[in-house]
């Protein structure tokens, strides 16, 4: 049994313009001691998913379906009070904007100490000691003096460290990190990520990392879940995902990252079009309008998340064996292999083959 099992989660928002299903039947799990990365564009529902796990969704949003099982307990059945006892103590969360995520009128030390006193019956002195301990753990020098500092006196990187200290103060089992480094300088990003990795290893902490940055995923995650338009479109171990991305969206994402090996005149993959309007999701596959491998069936039927031979989950008809109409030659992986083979044989034939294989 995984530490956290999310099954079929549905979170909707009743907006004045209509019903927005931000999270539509999402299923994933986080194992003890492992790191799960949730990756996707803005608006795909990854943040809402993490907030749903913490049950921090406020009106006009509502969690309307599914289950979130943590340590055997369904969090969605808990009362507000019971959930409050879990937040910060067993499951903790850090957010993207360290600049605005700390209360400007309280000292950073007081805010960390508050995390302790909220869940444990300790006196102020002991709480202060714990806070100083945590400050040291996250790499803040002169911790005892820094206890009395105010957030505005610190840099972005420092504040994120404070956030981490606050989150880990009660030794939670899972840390949810929603874009923790997006707002930071690149060098600081690296430091924070290193810190997270070290702390996770040291405390056997599970990580749920939400980001749009594949580099962070590659660095930190053990397993990856790719989200698009409120759904999971691919779920795989990190290595498998990067070596052989299956879903066309994932392939597009990976292709759009320049690497050291990308030639100067090589074009980055651009996924044409834009994310669908969550008020009006298409009936078929939600990625179909932008998919280079789409075929008629994709517009008619909505693909389910299915297991493929190598063990990962993909939501795409290209990998659905029940859809007999699929021409194996259309499969992106197969296509590449053929293209590679053809290039080795004759350049002219390869271009012709590539041209005919696209729909």
């Amino acid at each position, binding site marked *: 049994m995984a530490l956290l099992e999310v099954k079929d989660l549905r979170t909707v928002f009743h907006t004045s313009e209509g019903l927005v299903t931000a999270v539509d039947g999402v299923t994933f799990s986080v194992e003890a001691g492992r790191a799960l990365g949730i990756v996707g564009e803005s608006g795909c529902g990854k943040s809402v998913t993490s907030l749903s796990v*913490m049950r*921090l969704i406020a009106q006009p949003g509502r969690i309307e379906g599914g289950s979130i099982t943590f340590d055997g307990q369904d969090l969605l059945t808990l009362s*507000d009070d019971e959930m*409050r*006892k*879990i*937040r*910060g*103590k067993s499951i*903790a*969360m850090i*957010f993207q*904007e360290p600049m*605005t*995520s*700390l*209360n*400007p*009128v*309280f000292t950073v030390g007081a805010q960390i100490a*508050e*995390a302790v006193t*909220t*869940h444990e019956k300790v006196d102020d002195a002991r709480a202060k000691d714990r806070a100083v301990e945590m400050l040291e753990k996250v790499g803040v020098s002169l911790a005892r003096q820094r206890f009395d500092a*105010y957030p*505005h006196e610190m840099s972005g990187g420092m504040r994120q460290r404070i*956030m981490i200290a*606050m*989150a880990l103060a009660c030794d939670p089992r899972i840390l949810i990190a929603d874009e923790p480094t997006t707002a930071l300088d690149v060098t600081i990003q690296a430091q924070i990520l290193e810190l997270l990795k070290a702390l996770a290893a040291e405390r056997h902490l599970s990580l749920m990392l939400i980001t749009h940055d594949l580099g962070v995923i590659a660095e930190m995650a053990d397993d990856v879940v790719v989200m698009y338009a409120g759904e999971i479109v691919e779920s795989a171990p990190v290595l498998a995902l990067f070596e052989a991305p299956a879903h066309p969206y994932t392939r597009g994402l990976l292709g759009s990252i320049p690497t050291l090996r990308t030639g100067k005149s090589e074009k980055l993959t651009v996924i044409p079009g834009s994310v669908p309007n969550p008020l009006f999701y298409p009936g078929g596959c939600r990625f179909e309008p932008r998919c280079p491998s789409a075929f008629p069936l994709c517009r008619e039927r909505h693909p389910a998340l299915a297991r493929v031979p190598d063990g990962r989950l993909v939501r795409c008809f290209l990998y659905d064996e029940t859809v007999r109409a699929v021409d194996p030659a259309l499969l992106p992986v197969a296509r590449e292999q053929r293209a590679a083979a053809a290039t080795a044989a004759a350049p002219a034939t390869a271009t012709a083959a590539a041209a005919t294989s696209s729909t």
Partner: protein
Amino acid sequence: MRNYLFRRFLQMLVLLVFVTGLIYFVLNLFPGGPFDFLAFSSDPRDADPKAIERLEALLGLNKPWYERYFTWLLGVLRGDFGVSWVMAVGIPVGDLLQQRIGNTLTLTLLATAVSLVLGLVIGIWSAVKQYSLSDNVATAFSFAGQSMPTFWLGLMLIIVFAVRLKWLPAGDIYTPGKADDLGDRIVHLILPVAVLSLIQIALWSRFMRSSMLEVLRQDFLRTARAKGVAERLVLGKHALRNALIPMITIVGLDIPTIFSGAVVTESIFNWPGMGKLYLDSVLRHDIPVSMGVLAVLAFLVIVSNLLADVLYAVADPRIRYD
């Protein structure tokens, strides 16, 4: 910070000297002086211009206005506000002020306290329950309060509670013969305080509401919730502490306004305070008394401005004056 405060104090002092000077100048533009009554005397010798000139010279009234102003200013700094010309001829203005200031202070401070408590509570409630029925009612009340002239409100309340229902007295500070009865005094305070504070409540609840709304959108509240902090602490500790900061400035700067508003309230309720004194002195051209009240008001403006600055710096750690 001390530097800043000192500089501010000096600035305000200069400006208030300037303003009072200007007012003194304007006041002296129109005719009228302590010896006007002599013109009505039955004895024709009293109206002799030479005699009047001599009397005026005695009082230093023949000097140019700026000289007289500085004499007055220096006197004020020593606590000497001069002598009344008309209302209580010969009586030191300082005495008149002393008699009245207690009454006005009672009224003003009580009204401020009431307005503060109710204004904050209503504002916070409105913000937390935004767009609910109580919020809409509070908003309507706030609009009504800001659209109402104080004196009309006062008159209406007197008509309802004193004339029609006869529950409360229509004015005065105590019922004759019951000067020492605290209960009687309190009953007499109810309507004037209500009038003076109703409009402040309307304003302050609105400000508090928008300040609170601003804070309720902030990310750090989400962080507090994610830590597992109870909702009442999220609002009562994390949010409130931030929302109160702008209120400090607003309340601090409004205190002189409340004090001034007492002019009208005291006039309706026949309250023997400084407001009424001021009004009477203006209507009867008793310049020393008018200037005396203005001096007290100026002092109040300086003090409340500085106090607002200090409290603001104390409350918001991001503010550090250099």
